[in-house]
Every structure is written in structure tokens, then in C-alpha cells.
């Protein structure tokens, strides 16, 4: 076989089930205490610093990291369980999600020891929020077209330029960003970008919120004007971010957040149709559940590969491609299936409110963190086509 894709049927270890119970109990308490409303996914962007600290106190941030940095040295599969339970409960994870998923692992790999010692434990305690500075106004899917300059100066770099679509930049304490330290070369257009750790809320950084069509302000434009970054905040090789960027994006590709972003409408649909659905509703729900179950099993399988130290770039891209297309269509399919829900269904208004939000969220799902087109290009490369 040219293309040997593997999705072994990973079984979550026993300890995962214990952990799952703990997470559910914790979230139930938080909901009871009014920290968040699981029926209001549009509140997901609410900043919830105290919740973040309590999640950290549970040991659920940086779970897979070494203990000396505040981690738990637990498995990717355990982290998987925490992530999916948080997502399904619509918990306010915005403050810690990026740091836990992406920024921490990058620091672990590329930051100098003293910075790791300083920052990673704070991520694990849920104290700090990260943003990612990749896209620029004229570079979206093509990261290597970034133009924001990092000019060498005494003891560090001066940053000038603009990042865009930066989630959470308005509340973030840090950003991991790529800046241009040299022009690209003829041989390698990816050359010349360097990854930096940026301390936010410092002079020379202006954060301008961007309104989204959902009514939220989760994206930002971040303008740098002679912002100074010290030398020890360079992450990895100067001019060599291209070697680092690929593996970094892999973290983004196949987690449960890649097909569960609009899951709540499915739950509400099941509630709305009640225990005796007609054939139309039953079939619709059955197909959606079968598709969801399959994606989750694929996603768990990829988590198992990560745990085994593999780099399943193609498999992860497939999960994200299928998953994001699915979660994008889900609100529309649920709307179809809900067309004949009785006006007396107790959750009808909840369902309608959630559908409204999910339908408005849908367009971004196949764009953020790697568009469908980029993902299919990666898969095609893995198949030996490019």
C-alpha cells in the first residue's frame, strides 16, 4: 500500500475513567456555583481567571509536562479526557487553553531553562494566558510571508509591524510569535523568520479588538512599534522558525476541540425531539452520532500515537479536515432536523439561541488554525502527491 494510514483502536486506560469522573464532578460544582452556564456557549469567550486557577490547582494544566516545571508527567490520553470534558461542558477555557495546548510545548522545546522555570509553572497554575502571533494582514495561510520585523539591537530586538487574528491578545500575558529577522533566501523562501516569546502589556504593543460576525471580540490586531524583546526570549534558531513551525501546528490539528466546537446543538436536538423520535429525526441523529463517534475514535487514536512518540501529521490533518467540516455543517443539519420540533418542547428557545450562535460560528471552523485547503495539501503531501 502506498499510503498506510493507521488508526489503531486505542482503549483509554482505566485511570482515564477515574480522571473523567473527577473532571465531571469538578465541572458540575463549577456550574452549580455559577462560574459558567453550559447552555451558553457564546459565553465561552468570557474571561474566567479564577476558574483557570482552580483548573490549575487540580493539576489539569501542563499535565504531560515534566514535574520540575509544574507538570504532572501524565499521558496524552489523560490530557485528552480533560480537554474533551471541558469542551463538551462549554467551560470557559479561553484563558488557559492556548498555553496548555500550544505555547507550553513550544517553550518546553525551545526556551532557555530559566524561562521555562519562570513561566511553565505559572501556566500549570492557570495564572497566565498566552496568545499566538502567526498571521499578518497579508499572510494568512501562508505563514512564511510574514513581514513584521525584528531588528537586532543591543541585548535584544526591536519589533515593528502588525499581527492579526490573534485570539485572546486582549487578555494575554504572553504571546509566542514569529517575526522576520532576515529576508528570505532564493533557495528557501521560508528562511528568515524567528520565533519569539513576547511579554504583552508592555510599551510598544497596542491591541485592537476585531469584531466577529458572532458578535464577539475574540480576535485582535496587535500592533508593534519599536517593542523591545531581550535576546533570551528568542525561541529556537534565529532565522529558522520554519523548522519549528510545522511540528508546532501538529498540536492544533486533531484534538477533541476540532470537532466538538458546535457539539452542544446536537445535545439540545436530542433533548428537543424527546424519547420517541420519528424516523426522520432518529435517522438524522443516528448518522450524526455515528459520524461523531468515528471522529472521536480517530482523534483518540492520534492521541495514542502522540503518546507513543510518533508524529502523525497526516492522520492528525485528516481528523481536523473531517472534524471541522463536520462541526461546520452540524448546526445546519441540526436546524434541518429541528424544523418540526414541537413548539412545546421545553428547550426550544435554548436550541434556537444555540443554533443562532453555532450557525454564525460555523464559517470560521474550516479557516482557523489551518484552512481546509492547507490541510488537504498536507494530506496530499503525505500521500506522495506533492
Amino acid at each position, binding site marked *: 500500500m502506498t499510503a498506510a494510514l493507521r488508526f489503531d483502536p486505542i482503549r483509554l486506560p482505566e485511570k482515564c475513567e477515574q480522571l473523567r469522573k473527577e473532571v465531571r464532578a469538578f465541572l458540575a460544582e463549577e456550574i452549580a456555583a455559577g462560574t459558567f452556564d453550559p447552555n451558553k456557549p457564546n459565553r465561552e469567550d468570557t474571561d474566567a481567571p479564577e476558574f483557570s486557577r482552580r483548573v490549575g490547582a487540580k493539576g489539569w494544566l501542563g499535565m504531560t509536562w515534566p514535574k520540575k516545571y509544574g507538570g504532572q508527567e501524565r499521558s496524552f490520553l489523560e490530557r485528552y479526557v480533560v480537554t474533551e470534558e471541558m469542551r463538551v461542558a462549554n467551560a470557559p477555557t479561553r484563558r488557559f487553553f492556548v498555553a496548555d495546548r500550544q505555547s507550553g510545548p513550544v517553550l518546553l522545546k525551545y526556551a532557555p531553562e530559566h524561562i521555562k522555570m519562570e513561566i511553565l509553572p505559572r501556566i500549570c497554575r492557570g495564572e497566565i494566558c498566552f496568545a499566538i502571533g502567526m498571521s499578518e494582514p497579508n499572510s494568512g495561510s501562508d505563514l512564511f510571508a510574514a513581514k513584521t520585523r525584528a531588528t537586532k539591537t543591543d541585548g535584544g530586538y526591536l519589533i515593528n509591524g502588525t499581527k492579526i487574528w490573534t485570539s485572546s491578545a486582549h487578555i494575554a500575558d504572553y504571546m509566542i510569535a514569529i517575526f522576520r529577522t532576515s529576508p528570505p533566501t532564493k533557495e528557501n523562501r521560508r528562511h528568515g523568520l524567528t520565533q519569539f516569546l513576547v511579554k504583552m502589556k508592555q510599551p510598544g504593543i497596542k491591541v485592537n479588538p476585531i469584531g466577529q460576525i458572532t458578535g464577539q471580540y475574540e480576535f485582535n490586531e496587535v500592533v508593534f512599534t519599536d517593542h523591545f524583546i531581550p535576546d533570551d526570549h528568542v525561541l529556537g534558531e534565529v532565522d529558522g522558525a520554519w523548522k519549528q513551525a510545522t511540528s508546532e501546528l501538529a498540536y492544533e490539528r486533531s484534538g477533541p476541540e476540532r470537532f466538538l466546537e458546535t457539539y452542544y446543538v446536537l445535545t439540545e436536538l436530542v433533548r428537543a425531539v424527546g424519547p420517541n423520535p420519528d424516523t426522520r429525526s432518529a435517522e438524522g441523529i443516528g448518522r450524526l*452520532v455515528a459520524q461523531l463517534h468515528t471522529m472521536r475514535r480517530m482523534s483518540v487514536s492520534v492521541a495514542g500515537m502522540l503518546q507513543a512518540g510518533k508524529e502523525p501529521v497526516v492522520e492528525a490533518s485528516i481528523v481536523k479536515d473531517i472534524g471541522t467540516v463536520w462541526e461546520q455543517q452540524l448546526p445546519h443539519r441540526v436546524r434541518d432536523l429541528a424544523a418540526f420540533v414541537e413548539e412545546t418542547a421545553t428547550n426550544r428557545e435554548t436550541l434556537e439561541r444555540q443554533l443562532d450562535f453555532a450557525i454564525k460560528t460555523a464559517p470560521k471552523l474550516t479557516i482557523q488554525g489551518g484552512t481546509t485547503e492547507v490541510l488537504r495539501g498536507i494530506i496530499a503531501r503525505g500521500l506522495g*502527491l506533492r
Partner: protein
Amino acid sequence: MAFSDHRAQEETARQLIRQARQWQNTGNAVAESDNIVVETAEKIFADLADPQTINNDKNNSWQAPLWQALSEAGLPLAWVPDDLGGSGASLADGFALLNAAGRFAVAVPLAETMLAGWLLAQARIASPEGEMTVVPASPKDRITLDADGALSGRARGVPFAKAAKHFAVLAHGKDGAVIALVDASTGRIESGLNVGYDHSDTVTLDKVQPITIKPAPKGLDQTTLMLMGGVARSLQIAGALEAMLDISVRYSNERVAFEKKISKFQAVQHNLARLAGESAAALAAATSAADAIANAKSFNDEVYLEAASAKIRCAEAAEKGGGIAHQVHGAIGFTMEHILHRYSLRALAWRDDFGSESHWAVELGKLVATRGADELWPLVASR
């Protein structure tokens, strides 16, 4: 490898299967390539059921030697314990074997005989030699046992009924489900072909006296049989999709249009990426369900979710994925001379056996609805 080489090799095959079973049942899911049952089967398929050779053979002369080699290796009765005449492979090994059979689009009643042997073994009925199939093969059909111990009923779409020497029948008696071994010649068979040109026949039993009949064990009913058959078909579909991906990628790297390989066109690349996705989803759904059944203590809701989902998702993948494979191949893939249809049409045909995806979707939807909205996520996240 010539046919004669098999003989010597497969005399030891049963022995190997037993060994393999011992060390495989100890651990977690075993990768295909480590699986000696699958390796044995793949060697036989490669030698005696090469799709291109089979496709060029107009009089089906390949069927007899293939079946003989499979039988000698103990594969059709893989799921039958030693003391009932089988080779006693694990459920997991048997499912992996079916996946391999799908990768070769094998068109002999291997899956059917395996399922029949498995069903008979559940009631401690020994399996006879030769081809078998299961009756009924659709959730809608029903065979009943009357007071005289005779079986009656009509079963449509029974795969390979015409080729079978015996039927393993699941029937409804007044004290519950029974399992029976029936001589195929005692039933009436209306011959038919499915969309993949394999036999899919209507079997009518009219007060037929079975060879052996025993009560089904507690928990085994027609739904269980259908789910088991559905998972078998899911693995075959997944295997067929793996093969379709493989031959489509190869074709795209060979075929030239507009002065370049068609694999260099972004539209073709993205189509193949989608085919890879469908193939991956089918494989994941089918192997997950197989693993769930192989390790299940009972057919609970979690196993039901796995098995029904596999059939639903694999059937969807057969349509979408097979469509892409044909689109990539263009006109050549529409010819009988090309092997693509052996996979694509069979995968489509397999959708219909043991309950279509619509059937299982409705049933799964009802299960989810009955459990209620707040129990959906716990079900999905159950393993």
C-alpha cells in the same frame, strides 16, 4: 509463489494460528502486520486472488483453488473453537482477516462462513466442512421455529446462499432465539446478484427440519447477529477503501493530462485527500468496533454504538470514497477490465447486508433518544 507451495506451508497454518492466538490475546490491539493469521491470509490472497488476475478470468476458475487454500489454512472456520472443528482464532484475528479480505476484494464466502461458524459455535454446534452462510441477513426478515421443530420463513439478500452447502440459521422459537444448522439443499433459493455482481439470494425455508438445533445463549439475538455481520462488512468496506486509495494514488502518479501527472493538479490532490479521509474514517470505525466486540463482556449500549456506527460510517465512506476513486480514474475506472469496480461496487453492495446504514441510523438514533440528551456524551466518551 505457485499453488503447490501453499500446501506445505498451510499444513502448519492451523498450528501457527493457535500460537498466534496465545500471544495476541494477552495484549492490546495488535497491529495488522504483526498478525500471523492476516499474514497467512494475505499470502493466499496475493497468490490466488490477485485482483487483476481474477478480473481477467472470465469463468471464475480461481474460486475453487482459493477456497481450498483458505480452507486448508483453517481460515473460513477461524471463529470456530478447536473442539467444534475450527481453528479457534480470536475474534480480533478474524476481524483483521476480514479487513485483509476487503483489501483484496475477495469474492468467496469467507466472511459468510466465518459468521456462520461463529453463530453455530455460540450454541456449541460443530461446523461442517465447506461453504456456509447465515440466515437471515437482514434485520427485517424473520425465521420462525414451529412446535414440530421445523423452520419457516423468507430471508432476502442472503450473501452467497447459492454457493453455501449449509446455512447457520437464527430463528425465533416460542421460548426465544434458537440457532440451527440447516442443509442448504432443503431450502428454496431464488438466485440474485448484488450491485457488486456477487450472489445475494432469497432463501425460503418451508417447514425445514434442521440438522441440529439448540437454544441461543442468553443475550444473543437477531440484533446481535446483525451487528456482528455489520462489523464484518465494515471491515471489508474499510479494506476495499484502503485498496481504492492505494490504486487511485498510484494511477494519479502515472496518468498524464494537460502535460503533467494528474497528481499535480490541486483538484485531484484535494479529491484524494478526501478519499484518504473517508478511508481513514472507515478503517477507524471498523477496527474500533471490532476491538469493542472482541473485548466485550456483553452486547451493551457501548458495543451497540460501536457496531452500528461502524456500519453507518463505513457505508457513507463507501459511497463518498468510491465516488472519488472513480472520478480520479476517469473512463478507465468505468471498465470491467480495470480492477477498480471490484472494490467500488462490492463496497457499495456491502452497505446493504445485515442492515443498511439507514436502518442502523434509525436504531442508533432511537437508542440515543431513549437514553436522553444528557446521556449522549457519556455514551460517546465511554471508551
